[in-house]
């Protein structure tokens, strides 16, 4: 596997760098500055940094006021803790369409050692359901770096998800991103895997395994869950006839659900979802083992691809019989 880099550190450093270029950026945090690494920004711009204590709901509303005054607030807490501010986010950020950037740290199971209270497997589902809200789940450290500017300059509310873990570097500095636009990371003809976040690297590994077995897999990095790149999904369905989604999130309401909605309406093909089943996980001593244990291992992706290909082949077989 490629070199791993701490994405929370990348995020914190990039935010401080970007703060130099954009004087309107302000940062709010609810007593988790050392965890989500907003300390770099605080050191550089103490007057633009606001630690409001353990008060997530009030923090979101305070950010709303800053946005009304023309600032671009980056609001930071654990992804799971943003649920505490859901009504504030719905009413004052999404409905009022204020230019607030919510950054959910310690996403997915990445805070493996702190257990299910600290895991976050529903944040994408909750945020995605809100009108006006963009939802972004970067797939590697380079993408995290590039997203800080993209999120700041995107007009309106954005939810940006950042994990606690180190992530393998997939892209180089020339990597181009645009919120709302998926990226084909690997070309293939037989099946498409659509992934984001930490699962992207695992899907690329799975694609290698499958390639060695003679299966030709397309891999798409869907860093934006909303607005969803429906045309790329439709084009992939038409081209490969089978889709697998992979995300470090509940299979209810996240990327897999978004893709299923798009396929159902535009071009139904067999779909398999890799993610956390409708269950809470548990405490673990190791992040990768926890992902493997809860159905997000490389082998789980391989098996999902094999399942979806069987369904695709069965479909084409029955269609041939009809002819």
């Amino acid at each position, binding site marked *: 596997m490629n070199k791993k880099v701490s994405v929370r550190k990348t995020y914190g450093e990039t935010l401080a760098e970007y703060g130099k270029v954009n004087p309107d950026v*302000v940062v709010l945090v609810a007593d988790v500055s050392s965890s989500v690494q907003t300390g770099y920004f605080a050191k550089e711009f103490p007057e633009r940094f606001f630690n*409001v204590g353990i008060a997530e709901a009030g923090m979101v509303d305070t950010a709303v*006021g*800053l946005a009304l005054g*023309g600032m671009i607030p980056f609001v930071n807490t654990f992804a799971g803790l943003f649920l505490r501010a859901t009504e504030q986010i719905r009413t004052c950020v999404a409905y009022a369409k204020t230019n607030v950037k919510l950054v959910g740290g310690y996403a997915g199971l990445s805070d493996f050692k702190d257990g299910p209270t600290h895991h976050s497997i529903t944040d994408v589902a909750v945020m995605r359901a809100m009108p006006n809200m963009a939802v972004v789940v970067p797939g590697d450290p380079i993408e995290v770096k590039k997203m800080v500017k993209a999120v700041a300059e995107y007009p309106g509310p954005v939810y940006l998800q950042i994990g606690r873990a180190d992530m393998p570097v997939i892209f180089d500095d020339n990597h181009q991103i645009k919120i709302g636009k998926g990226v084909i990371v690997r070309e293939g003809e037989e099946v498409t895997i659509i992934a984001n976040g930490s699962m992207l690297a695992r899907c690329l590994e799975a694609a290698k395994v499958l390639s060695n077995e003679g299966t030709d897999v397309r891999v798409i990095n869907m860093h934006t869950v909303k607005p969803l790149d429906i045309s790329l999904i439709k084009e992939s369905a038409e081209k490969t006839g089978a889709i697998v989604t992979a995300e470090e999130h509940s299979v209810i309401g996240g990327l897999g659900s978004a893709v299923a909605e798009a396929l159902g309406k535009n071009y139904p093909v067999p779909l398999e979802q890799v993610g956390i089943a409708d269950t809470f996980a548990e405490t673990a001593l190791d992040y990768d083992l926890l992902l493997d244990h809860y159905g997000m291992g490389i082998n789980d992706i391989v098996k999902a691809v094999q399942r979806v290909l069987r369904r695709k082949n069965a479909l084409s077989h029955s269609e041939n019989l009809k002819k």
Partner: protein
Amino acid sequence: MAYSKELIKELEEKAQQLRLDALEMIHHRGQGHPGGALSAAEIIAALFFHHLRIDPDRPNWENRDRFILSKGHACAILYPALAGLGYFPMEDLKNWGHIGAHLQAHPDRLKTPGIEMTTGFLGHGISIGAGLCLSARLKGLDYHVYVLVGDGECQSGVLWEGVMTAAKYKLSNLTAILDYNKVQLDGPLNKIMPLEPIKEKWESFNWKTIEIDGHNIKEVLEALDKAKENKNKPTVIIAHTIKGKGVSFMENKAEWHGKAPDDNEYAQAVKELTARSF
């Protein structure tokens, strides 16, 4: 501070006219929140027809004062004030709550000119006001931020998060006005969840407090000016008011929190409100 008799009389008349307009709107629509609208009439009149540094011709003027109706359900008293100042035509008041109209059941900043922030669910205003004050400081602007809060929303924890934030950053450009009418949706506030000692609560959170009769224009004007003089703390004006003020059968009655008068009740209310001489 001295305020001319003419000014006080004018603002008293404005407040009474706002009450009539609010009730006309609520009656016409068949829905709305008369109790908490009527209790805030003098506060809204004093702010919008005298105190606020605003210019309806420049609703996006960067250095304008900001007003946030945290108790968004009282918008029937705010909309006619905005219309009266020319933010939108008076005729629009008749379309309140219709599909396609800009006047929503609760204030919507994206639809209605002059509305600074979307409100409706309670408890948000103080934190939002604090954020606005922080951005004024960062942008080197000297506007003042006013937040009208209901007493019921002082029961919500998130409100006090904003109170702490405003105190921590010494936001003296923030003034909260508490419309302390002591009645909420489900009944008397003291029975649902008491707030007393409310003055001491705010003071212990490091806010300056001013206690007034919220139906006395002179006291409202004095308190608003005094709050601006304060240089190192936010201020809350605790305005003692009467829910449904001005209409005898609505006063202090929880049942008038959120229902419209029928034709007879409306006629009676108008009679009472117009009978008052200045």
